């Protein structure tokens, strides 16, 4: 199976299968007391998962829980401003450009038409643009240690969706977001997901900004810490319909309680 090979199911719209080829290094150690004498051998294998890029994706599990009171809009505006540098005003942008909601103008991105209700929401796309702009990763030329992960809670509100951005007490660096100890008190009631950026492009060497455990070639998708974050969030709320979203320089990934089996991959849109 090659990357992106399409498989057609006779009863449904065509579904894309995305395949990732893993390279596994195995070490045979003839003398267990001398691990430095282990002999490496390399095996490759392929894992495929369905993607929603043809519009068959969208929606996670059951319907969202509507037993919540809408957040006052004021609260959302306040948190929306968390990414704004003090004193910046929305820009008036030239034709073909749009405000990045952080005081700058960026080329108008392609709108999302993914079939995923959350991603296809205009408000969410505007929020993704703001998250990406705050990530300072608009091009691969920007030094990696100057980029930042950004993110927030995705909430359902007034029949639509919005992002409540993580407040400044959530510490950011290029390779992670670390919440404060009272993070559970800061989760909005009407949460349906959480989103964060990976301010990288496929193939970039992230060893510099991410330390010894970075990737020599960034491969995209959620990480083990991202799954743990989602799992802890779901366990705390007792709500296993919550989805995780990762946006990076090329793709949007959604994932759920099934971890990698639940990954859906979308071409970058909305930001």
């Amino acid at each position, binding site marked *: 199976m090659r990357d992106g090979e399409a498989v057609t199911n006779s009863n449904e719209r065509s579904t894309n299968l995305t395949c990732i080829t893993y390279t596994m290094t195995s070490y045979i150690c003839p003398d267990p007391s001398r691990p430095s004498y282990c002999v490496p051998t390399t095996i490759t294998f*392929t894992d495929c998962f369905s993607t929603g890029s043809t519009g068959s994706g969208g929606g996670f599990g059951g319907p969202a829980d509507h037993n919540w009171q809408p957040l006052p809009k004021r609260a959302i505006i306040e948190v929306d401003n968390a990414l704004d540098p003090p004193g910046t005003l929305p820009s008036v942008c030239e034709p073909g450009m749009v405000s990045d909601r952080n005081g700058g103008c960026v080329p108008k991105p392609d709108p999302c038409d993914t079939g995923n209700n959350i991603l296809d929401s205009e408000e969410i796309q505007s929020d993704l643009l703001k998250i990406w702009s705050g990530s300072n990763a608009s091009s691969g030329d920007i030094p990696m240690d100057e980029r930042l992960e950004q993110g927030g809670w995705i909430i359902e509100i007034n029949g639509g969706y919005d992002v409540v951005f993580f407040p400044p007490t959530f510490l950011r660096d290029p390779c992670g977001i670390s919440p404060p100890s009272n993070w559970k008190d800061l989760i909005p009631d009407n949460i349906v997901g959480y989103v964060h950026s990976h301010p990288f492009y496929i193939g970039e060497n992230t060893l510099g900004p991410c330390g010894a455990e970075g990737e020599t070639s960034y491969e995209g998708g959620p990480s083990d810490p991202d*799954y743990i974050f989602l799992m802890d969030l779901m366990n705390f709320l007792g709500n296993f319909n919550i989805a995780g979203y990762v946006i990076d320089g090329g793709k949007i990934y959604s994932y759920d309680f099934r971890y990698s089996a639940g990954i859906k991959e979308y071409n970058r849109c909305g930001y």
Partner: protein
Amino acid sequence: MWILNNNIMRIRKYILVAGLFIFTIYSSFAQSIDLKNNECPAKSRLAKLGVEIFIQLAGSKDFREQIGASGETVEQVQAVENGQTCSALNDFISNNRKFNNINQSYKDTDKQVYFYKTDNFYYVFWGRKPEFDDRPATGPKTLFIVIKNDLSQFWEYYF
């Protein structure tokens, strides 16, 4: 002549005492290194959750099949608490330049090494210290080392 012999005797005595002193210091130091080597890393709720996710991860299914770890279950996951095993795993890290470099790079940071196990494998990886168990953080894909429990073979997995 007698005075010279007496001096030599005194010098010998000093050398002997100094030697004994150095030996005592050395052996207690060596013992403290041994004790440290036998120490097991602290346990963490989120680190254990990470191992449980690895065991359930569809993306790691092929990998687990390849290395013969398909039979390992979430229920089997527990921290390594046996001093001898921890000593062997500490040696395993310090004898591998790459793993030792990673371990050293996390000295005096908010991260530490973790040793977990299931029936037939050990899992060695690095994560945030247990004092951060109340707050999961997003982060990059990390190295996860899976080791056969007779230490005869190990594999690297990033996720």
